[in-house]
């Protein structure tokens, strides 16, 4: 197997498969064969919660090209949605750190469908079935736990999360426990999570079990709709005295992350990860929102003109050709927001899609990689 993949990745084979690349041939035989790309097959679907925004955990068998992940990292997941349109979104990995080629899990909360199109998260959470194919990236992100459980130190750890932000810290906790972390490590872990209600609490059983065992892990689940107190520095200080000097990871909605960051007052012990809420379409009407060009760091109030016109007004010189939507020279990656095709009037909100900026006008907030 190792030899086969070494051969498939060799320069000689690349030269033979030029210009399309080895993977364009392998995928014709078996979608789970790849020399460079990463793909995955859903092997198990487990509902975590029900309700309007159900949460589901998917177990994924990746191709042998998967290089593994460290606890806290995320992965880009591309899915062919109905209508043959592929959407791509980023999800945190929820299982313990994985080795190359090893299975992992994703825990996905269903967001609402937008502009008559299926949302990717809703599709994964409610319609994914074993056997489904996912297009993946390698794991990325540096919201990771660099303290190794193999070298225990007496320093305590603190994991704070809110809502769907629980997935990366759960991955950290699971990694610690899997790798033999227990009470003898003499390194207390505090796991603090905010959910709206017990019905929306994911991993409830597993967390209850973790809390029961003698492993020096303190689990605190706060249910805000049930009178649980929201985050405050005082409440945290009661749980973890001297929290500012404790290695802490926080992930969740912006409000929570901001509040925690304020409480830490610039302490280097705090690592944060924002969990991004899906962009919502602002709807038709007069132009509103911000247009931002992420690579150049420029941005301005949305004027309602095409992205090209707005970019040029800011002094950017994106590549263009026909300026009328036929040559695709100006195609750029829209990372978030909704755009309207000025010729057809069609709106599109898929994150990470290529748009022709000469005929696309933003509707509400919009970010483009320019």
């Amino acid at each position, binding site marked *: 197997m190792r030899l086969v993949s070494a051969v498939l990745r060799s320069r*000689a084979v690349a*030269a*033979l498969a*030029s*210009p*399309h690349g080895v993977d*364009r*041939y392998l995928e*014709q035989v078996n979608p789970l064969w790849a020399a460079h790309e990463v793909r995955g097959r859903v092997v198990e679907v487990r509902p975590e919660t029900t309700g309007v925004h159900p949460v589901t955990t998917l177990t994924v068998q990746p191709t042998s090209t998967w290089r593994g992940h460290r606890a806290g990292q995320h992965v880009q997941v*591309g899915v*062919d949605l*109905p*209508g*043959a*349109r*592929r*959407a*791509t979104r980023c999800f945190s990995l929820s299982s313990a750190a994985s080795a190359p080629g090893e299975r992992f899990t994703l825990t996905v909360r269903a967001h609402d469908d937008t502009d008559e199109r299926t949302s990717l998260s809703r599709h994964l959470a409610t319609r994914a079935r074993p056997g489904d194919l996912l297009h993946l990236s390698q794991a990325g992100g540096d919201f990771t736990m660099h303290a190794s459980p193999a070298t225990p130190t007496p320093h305590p750890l603190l994991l704070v999360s809110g809502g769907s932000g629980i997935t990366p810290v759960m991955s950290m906790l699971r990694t610690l426990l899997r790798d033999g972390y227990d009470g003898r490590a003499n390194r207390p872990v505090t796991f603090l999570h905010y959910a709206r209600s017990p019905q929306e609490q994911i991993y409830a059983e597993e967390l209850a079990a973790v809390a029961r065992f003698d492993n020096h892990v303190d689990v605190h689940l706060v249910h805000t709709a049930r009178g649980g107190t929201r985050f405050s520095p005082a409440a945290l200080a009661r749980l973890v005295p001297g929290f500012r000097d404790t290695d802490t990871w926080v992930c969740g909605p912006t409000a929570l992350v901001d509040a925690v960051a304020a409480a830490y007052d610039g302490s280097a012990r705090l690592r944060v990860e924002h969990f991004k809420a899906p962009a919502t379409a602002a709807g038709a009407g007069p132009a509103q929102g911000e247009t931002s060009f992420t690579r150049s760091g420029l941005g301005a109030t949305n004027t309602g003109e095409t992205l090209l016109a707005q970019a040029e007004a800011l002094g950017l010189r994106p590549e263009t*050709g*026909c300026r*009328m*939507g*036929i*040559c*695709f*020279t100006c*195609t750029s990656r829209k990372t978030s927001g909704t755009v309207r095709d000025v*010729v*057809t009037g*069609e709106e599109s909100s*898929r994150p990470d*899609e*290529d748009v*022709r900026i000469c005929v696309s006008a933003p509707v509400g907030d919009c970010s483009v990689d320019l």
Partner: protein
Amino acid sequence: MTTSTSTSTSTRLTPDQLDALGAEMDAIRQRVLADLGEADADYIHGVVRLQRRLEVAGRALFYLPPAWPVAVAALSVSKILDNMEIGHNVMHGQYDWMGEPGLSSRMYEWDNVCPSEQWKYSHNYIHHTFTNVLGKDRDIGYGILRMDEDQPWHPYYLGNPVYALLLMVFFEWGVAMHDLEVENIVAGRRTLADNKALHAGIMRKVRRQALKDYLLFPALTGPLFPLTLAGNATANLVRNVWAFNIIFCGHFPAGVATFSEEECRDESRGHWYYRQLRGSANIDGGRLFHLMTGNLSFQVEHHLFPDLPARRYPEISGEVKEICERYGLPYNTGPLGKQLVSVARKICRLALPDRRRAQQPAAQAQPAAA
């Protein structure tokens, strides 16, 4: 009956008529765009599967010397599909809506010595934006041939038929060199330094193409090296001859109009459609024939809607024809034989000084390209 004069006058339609024509064309376009989905995805996936299979079969059959003609046929068809129904159309962005990297206009690279990046500039932008505008559209004669009466005659053009023959045999090389604008360098309008970056890109692609077809694959067949080499060269030649003929029949039969820069200054969307309609010609044929031409046998529809999946051209051609009838516009089409003869005639006729013009030298006040 189509006329044989090549220069058009847009006075045949009033501005209002042009606007109405534009609106009708836009309506067709939107209707197809709204209908894109599974069927289009299945189609292009099917063509890709067929192309990959033919390619692998062709390469494999070279190990069986008596099957040499079959191997060459399979490889030739594979290269034709790769360049025409897949490459040309994918690079027009026809399948960008699918969001599939393998079918994205930004990433696709074709089995041709011309790097896709450069081809997209000269073809998608220059040729499709300035279709048949003399002095702007460099596809008219590829800078080598005299293909229009408004290109002033020069004794150099006595070789027109010979140049055409050479261009046909070495078509992929001609297309690659096209971007270097050698004729403009000879004429002093472009410097060699302008070509440095282009040159490097072309050489990189040429090296890769030559390495695989003329060295690696032949070498892999061991003692059959010369046979395989000849087979690969033949497949490239077949593709060249086929592509050249289809493309020339789409642009240069009798009845196709050319335009002056003045006519097209600040043109309306309707006039743009009008120019596309008058600047191209179709070839009649069956389904297999259309597949092999990459549906460029529907060159008229392709020029009107370059970014719609080519498999849609047959279904909209009836409507386009009907619109032409209503507006009293010619819809240029004919069987392959007729269009070929017409093109060959033009190539030979334009090798000689124009008789009508020679008698009335005052008539050639038109600005024209070299």
